């Protein structure tokens, strides 16, 4: 029994180390420098969010899966699974990186803010942890089974991130959301 406890503790410790190590990794992903009117931040955010959601629908949706399955070729099916896994994992990393960037930005602004509320900060921290956990679970599931059928979780991840963006602004008024 004691060995099992030690094993579980080691597993949890390893998971924690992995989480911390990943949070130190920063991947700038969105590149909007070349598009016109980059000073219109609100509209750019809106456009990026819409595009991110469309990527989600394509990568985690099962329309393409059904089309390829109906084709009946194992080679194409394997190719689809491989490619969709790659895109889905990239999308998850991006969401996770966006969340970390938002929290860093929030922490910087919170240091100078005078009217912070404990409940607000706690709620934000909870949402952030929830998002990171969901990203890890989603990554593992995608790696093991592929992204098809996980659309609901991906949508939930996206929603939590939007919540963090919105809530970060409410908790520290004047904080701009990061367009990463």
């Amino acid at each position, binding site marked *: 029994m004691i060995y099992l406890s030690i094993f579980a503790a080691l597993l949890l410790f390893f998971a924690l180390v992995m989480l911390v190590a990943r949070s130190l990794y920063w991947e700038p992903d969105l590149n*909007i420098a*070349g598009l*016109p009117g980059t000073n219109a931040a609100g509209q750019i955010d809106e456009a990026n969010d819409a595009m991110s959601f469309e990527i989600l629908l*394509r990568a985690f949706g099962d329309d393409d899966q059904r089309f390829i399955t109906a*084709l009946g070729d194992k080679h*194409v099916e394997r*190719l689809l699974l491989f490619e969709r896994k*790659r895109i889905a994992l990239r999308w998850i990393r991006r969401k996770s990186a966006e969340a970390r960037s938002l929290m860093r930005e929030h922490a910087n602004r919170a240091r100078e803010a005078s009217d912070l509320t404990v409940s607000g900060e706690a709620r934000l921290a909870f949402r952030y942890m929830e998002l990171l956990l969901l990203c890890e679970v989603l990554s593992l599931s995608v790696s093991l089974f592929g992204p098809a059928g996980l659309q609901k979780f991906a949508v939930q991840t996206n929603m939590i991130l939007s919540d963090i963006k919105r809530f970060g602004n409410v908790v520290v008024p004047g904080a701009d959301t990061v367009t990463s």
Partner: protein
Amino acid sequence: MTWRKVLPADVLRAYEDFSSRSLARIPSALERLIYIASTRDYNSGLYHHEGLAARFDPLAAAKALEYAHAGVFREVSLMPLSQLSDELEKYMQSAKEEPLAFLTAWQELEPYRVAIPMHADPTVAELFVSNIKIALAVLRYRLPKEPDHQSGASLPPSPAPRSLPQFRS
């Protein structure tokens, strides 16, 4: 597209002119994408379209082309695979190349990568490349079966280099 709201007025006018005169004549989004990408200089990354630059300020015309490129690229990248496969098949037929030679060249040389806008979102760019690869595999599977179809190793000789279909505004 939301970007439209933030375009300067002259760029927007040039874009609308280009859309109605040139793009509207091209039936599929994939062909529109290839056409717009062909207006970009590979060395400088700058866009140029004779007709558009004659009617508008050349800088506004180039920006309009860049904007059009981004929009069509996004449309093609997020397209369902069934539709993309059909569009690619139509494009392959319009190229009048031997299907096997076309597919082999596209799979080996990946010429479709030049259709990616310079400032494209990296995830969308990856999705585009990924979808084209799968659509090519679908088309190869749909080809009438011959003994050496699966290998795809050799490139049959082409009688003469062919260029992209010409569309004029």
